[in-house]
């Protein structure tokens, strides 16, 4: 078969440049630790790489969100512990107050203490967490939810929806809760009385000496305390949920990282072998080139 001279050289040059390209790619991969240096070199997989990177970022955001929610729930839990203690004291006071007969002065001093406890409770209900959120203000987390008025009554001015935060693709958790859901009032038949109003009524009954009112208060305070107990256990459950969510996110992160790594990251053993192979091939091509170029009839023509 006739082979033209330029064909011989063209084929050699083609091979040489292909070898040089593969060698450069292998060297680039080894120096960066990534299988490819430009997306077009791995055109088929970059879409998946981007998706996995985004997924990892989402998972990181999930973990961050969980920790932000935890800050809020933590603050609620701590505050509620103190509330529980105060509720115990209120129960004692209600018990004392329900005794009959006793002098009005005694009742007045109980009323004074009830008032003090109420103020302390208002302070606790206006607790802020490390992120400066009023944890009992619901979605209105930037302002104190309970206002103590001049006449001693307490108004809830927060939102009636919680500050809800997305903690993963499907789940939400509440970083704050709204006051009335925690500081739940009492119902007497059809009538429902708010938490602090019940305390006000207790105080008023003490001041007026109204026995029925004082006995009612004993009942009320018991219920209010139970409501706080429910809220405490709710924060505990919330904490558990958060821990599970965080654990899940961490597990999925590990798996996603593995997938990403298998797509993108370099297997050094294979890469080094590849480099050696490409070097050898390059050497072979070059020596072939030099030998072929020496072969010419000219050498024998004198």
């Amino acid at each position, binding site marked *: *078969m*006739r*082979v*033209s*001279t*330029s*064909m011989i050289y*063209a*084929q050699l040059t083609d091979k040489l440049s292909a070898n040089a390209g593969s060698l450069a790619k292998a060297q680039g991969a080894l120096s960066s630790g990534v299988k490819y240096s*430009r*997306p*077009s070199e791995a*055109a*088929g*997989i*970059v*879409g*998946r*790489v*981007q*998706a996995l*990177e*985004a997924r990892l*970022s*989402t998972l990181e*955001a999930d973990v*961050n*969100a969980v920790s*932000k929610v935890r800050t809020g729930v933590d603050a609620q839990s701590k505050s509620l512990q103190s509330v529980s203690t105060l509720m115990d004291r209120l129960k004692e006071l209600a018990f004392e107050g329900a005794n009959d007969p006793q002098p009005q002065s005694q009742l007045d001093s109980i009323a004074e203490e009830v008032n003090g406890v109420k103020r302390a409770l208002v302070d606790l209900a206006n607790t802020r967490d490390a*992120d*400066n*959120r*009023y944890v009992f203000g619901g*979605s*209105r*987390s*930037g*302002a104190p939810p309970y206002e103590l008025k001049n006449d001693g009554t307490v108004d*809830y*001015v927060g*939102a*009636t*929806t*919680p*500050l*809800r*935060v*997305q903690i993963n*693709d499907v789940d939400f958790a509440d*970083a704050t809760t*709204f006051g*009335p*859901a925690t500081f739940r*009032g009492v119902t007497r038949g059809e009538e*429902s009385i*708010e938490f602090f109003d019940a305390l006000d009524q207790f105080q008023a009954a003490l001041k007026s000496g109204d026995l029925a009112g004082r006995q009612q208060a004993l009942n009320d305070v018991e219920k209010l305390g139970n409501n706080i107990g429910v809220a405490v256990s709710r924060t505990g459950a919330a904490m558990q949920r958060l821990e599970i969510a965080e654990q899940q996110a961490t597990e999925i992160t590990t798996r996603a990282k593995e997938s990403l790594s298998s797509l993108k990251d370099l297997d050094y053993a294979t890469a080094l072998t590849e480099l050696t192979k490409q070097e050898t091939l390059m050497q072979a091509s070059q020596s072939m080139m030099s030998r072929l170029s020496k072969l*010419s*009839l*000219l050498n024998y*023509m004198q």
Partner: protein
Amino acid sequence: MVDLVGIGVSGLSAYQQALATTSNNIANLQTEGYVRQRVSLQSAGQDNLSRISLGNGVRLAEIERLYDRFAEENLQRASSDLKGQETLLSQLQSLQDAIGSSDAGLHGALQAFFDSARALEAAPAAAGARAGFLAAADGVSARMRGLGGTVQSLEANSRTQIEQDVSALNSYLQEIATLNKELLKRSNSAEQPMQLLDRRDATLKKISELIGITVATTSGGAASIYAGDSAAGVALVEGSETHSVSAQFDAVDYGRVQFVLDAASRPTVLPTVRNGSLGGLVTFRSQSLGVAADTLDNIALSFGRGVNRLHREGLDAQGMPGGDLFYVGPKFTVDGKANAGAGRLGVEVVDAEIVQAHSYKMSFDANAQLWTVRDQSTGQIASGANDLLLGGLKFNVQGMPKNGDTFVISPEARPSLTFQTLVRDTEKVATASKATVSSAPTNVSTAVGDIGFGAPRAAEIVRSISEILPRTSGPPYIDTYFSKSSRPIASIPAGTSNVVLTSGASDGELAVFTRDGRQISGPDLTSLKSSIVTKANGFYDGAVYSAAYLNAVGEDAYLDHGFVSGAYAIAGSQKGANGDDLLTPATLIGDAVDLATLPNTFSLRINGKTVAINLTGVTSDKLQAIKTQVNASSATTGAVVEVLENGKAVTSGGDRLVFKTAGKAAVGTLSAGASPSVTINGTVFEASSTPDLVTAINAAKIGVTASASGSTLTLANSYGQAGQPFKVRSDAYGLDEQTYYSSAPLSVEFDPAVSSSSALTALGLRRGFAMADALGEDLLVFGVKQSAGSSPELSAVSVAGSYDAATRPADLFGPGKTPSYSLVFGDSNAYTLVDDNTGTEVSAGTFDDKDRTIRYGDWQVTFDGIPVKGDTYSITKTDAPLGDNRIAAAIARLQHSRELTGTDQTLQEQYESLVNRTGALTVQAEIGKNAQKVVFDHSLEARDRVSGVNLDEELSDLLRYQQAYQANAQVIQVATRLFDALMQKL
């Protein structure tokens, strides 16, 4: 004796030429397109003079061009295919490098944005989270512009390449034509100069590298070139005639590239070009670049608009409504240079939500005084006198246009290129929702409501009044549109103002409803409620009929809004021939009064004021009696009635009534010592005393009646001229020059408490519906007919009317507004929604346990539980936005929204699809290129096997010919010696 010298010389000259041919082969070793040549020698014949014949030496038979046409054509085709794939691959790689990079691609930037939105969601009041959110927004904007720019530069690049290729192609085609001219001189290719043929083949190869062609050669070697795979394609070169090729691009659709032959003379469009570098570039543009640009634009638009929509619903740290977070183009440029008229067109974006980067064309028809604007991409059309609305744009023309004037409106830049973050101040980031749902503390259930804003509720589309009454402004337009009797005639879209609709027939009436089933106007349709208030008729799902606000006015009206259920007119103003304003009072001219059906006692509401009419005991001239009774209340109603007969106002008899807005009276007191004089409509009246002046004015019968009380003069419209403007000036009576006239509108309704709408018909007035101010929600209009003594029935009714085109209704939760709604739950999940400001029950229905959502206007409240009887929720504006995360959360949630892009994919998925698609095409192009390379190498080898130069072969030929040459020289030497020897012997 055989001529030894002659033989030697023939050998010398033959081998000299053979050596020259071989040397030429060696010299052209690297010449592209060179075809190897070979000498063929032939015996020079024999000397047959003697019995023994001896040869006469050698001669050069021919120099052969070693050419295989089949191999050459194969090579051309293979190089065309290879070049196409190579070009495609390199372009695709550039695109993939831009969009597929984790650092430069959009995927990561979108992710960072949504992550920052989630950080903001968790800590909405934290300044750091706000700053981080803005930084991420800036990042995504920059990335969007960067990618848009990259795509645009790839477009510019490929466009330049196409243009360069086309110009190279044209010069090659020209070259072939020139070569053909030479080649056509000989009919046999063997006689052609080989150089010409080599040049032809080299040029053909270059052309096939640019574009796929088919070549047909004549026996003389002249080549005709056809685009495409067969000689049936469009001819690029025929003989010595060439057709120049030009490329045409589309400004918006990058994928549309056309190659046109002879664009200047007889344009012919080439069929799709597939091969060669041009084919590669075109394939790249249509398969990838166009899609990439469109996808980026779509992502920019849907992302920008989606975020903006939520951000606008929110409140910033200071409690102000959040504006647009991103600027989402496009901007428009207007070209009207060629217009004869002096009209200037302004294009304004009125609904950024729906604006597309489309081109529009707007032209003027002077005969109909109509502008028509056409969306060049969708073909949608809008027409009207001015202020046309189409695709979220408002087209307003100022100045006087001429017939045929045309404006071309083009989008200035692609949305991805102009994408920008508009908010710079962290305080201006809106994280809070503008509205809040509060549960009453006494609620028994713990269900919590969350408010969301969105597009208005889904309902059946009912044709808008703009479709049946297309001309929005100008005189009332009468249309003989007939509805199907069971369907609404039309809807009045929210935001439509100055609506005046009348039944086109005297026996027809219009019934008007809200989409929530509240009937506002018309006869009481309680008996028909189940057939009217249906989803198919355009009512909201679950709408309940209510007649509580039917025909009511003032505080009893629906949302305390001013509706007119009867006849309505507005004052007119026109320019007269001399440029003066010609004013006409609001006028309602009735048909002939039907005395037979006119009740003896009835009550009218004129301009909202009740006027009771009692005709008991009146036996004759009932119309005059009505006139007297109505005019007695003129001072409170602001309207007057005149009785007409044959178009003239009469004081007795008459057959019809005309209601007009009462004019204003001019009242002045004579200054002490002044001479009584007054100028009315330019006529000067003078007298010695006020009573004399009164007499003079009244005697003149100029349509103005004068009266006096002491020295006080009162000028008012004469009977028959009610409401007509008149101009008065009098220094004596202290009256500055002024036109006395009232431009107030006029409404005449029946009083539903006392009489029915048939009272209006009997009076000869049409029963219609009107409202001046726009309502924030749609209304549905039905046609009704009612014969005496029977119940009303839905009926086909023609309508006449006018209105001002709808504008986007004001935001109920916007600045300056104090919305407050109460949502109250009753027995078995029934609920009512009351507008607290007006006490209007705007909606009622049954709460759906599964959907748990109550919708009204453009908002909806979703509950996380089931409210029980007595539970009350109030919906108000958010008062303390700091620390509220609802909008931030909604923005973060967009990451997973599949509705946003209109493709059932999330934003990131859509982008990922683009990357994957480009990736797949790149991989495919790479495989294609490798395959084509093999084919090309094979074709080249096949061609070179025949036509290529092998140095060793040539060198051996050189040696061979050299030796032959030397041997022939030797022959001559021998002959010489022989000759010398002979000479010496002699």
